[in-house]
């Protein structure tokens, strides 16, 4: 699944997410539910939230939830991607975070996991071929 599709699924599934942007490892937006310039601004804000929380602690932040009276910003990242999302005030944080992690998992699964089933199928075919011979 590419970033655009993963983001489209997120926006469809989550009723609480107003806007979201998927950011690649180099910091550039890969997909956004917003027009490009606004998506970049949201991505920059997300990067700053991660940077500034990393400066204050000697650990790597993997999830930030900033709750204001007007709405919340969620930032979740894994090794390859970061996703930032905004919601209205007082969201159900657990559900939003679950949806964001699901989106990140979908992005992570796309890359290295694909060849495994093919290999198994080949072995099965060979075994079937041996039996036939």
């Amino acid at each position, binding site marked *: 699944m590419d970033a655009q599709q993963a983001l489209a699924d997120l926006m469809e599934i989550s009723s609480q997410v107003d806007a979201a942007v998927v950011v690649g490892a180099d910091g550039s937006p890969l997909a956004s539910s917003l027009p490009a310039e606004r998506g970049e601004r949201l991505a920059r804000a997300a990067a700053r939230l991660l940077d500034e*929380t990393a400066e204050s602690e000697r*650990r790597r932040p993997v*999830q930030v939830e*900033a709750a204001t*009276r007007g709405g919340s910003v969620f930032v979740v990242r894994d090794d390859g991607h970061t996703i930032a999302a905004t919601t209205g005030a007082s969201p159900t944080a657990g559900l939003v975070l679950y949806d964001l992690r699901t989106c990140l998992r979908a992005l992570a699964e796309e890359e290295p996991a694909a060849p495994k089933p093919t290999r198994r199928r080949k072995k099965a075919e060979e075994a079937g071929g041996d039996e036939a011979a």
Partner: protein
Amino acid sequence: MRRRSVVAALLAAGAGAHLLRRRRGAEAERVDVHYDDGSMVSLEQGPELERLLTVAREGLAAARA
């Protein structure tokens, strides 16, 4: 009978106060940060919180512009 009414009133007041506290807590401004070592920090006051909320408001403004 009167004793029961007093107990019921106290329970209702306690439940109301609990709900009010939860509601206020949910509406409070804060930043929760989870780290890769499994630890978590919740900022509920102070200059660091204000700095992070300013950044968050910029993100919200971008989303709603």
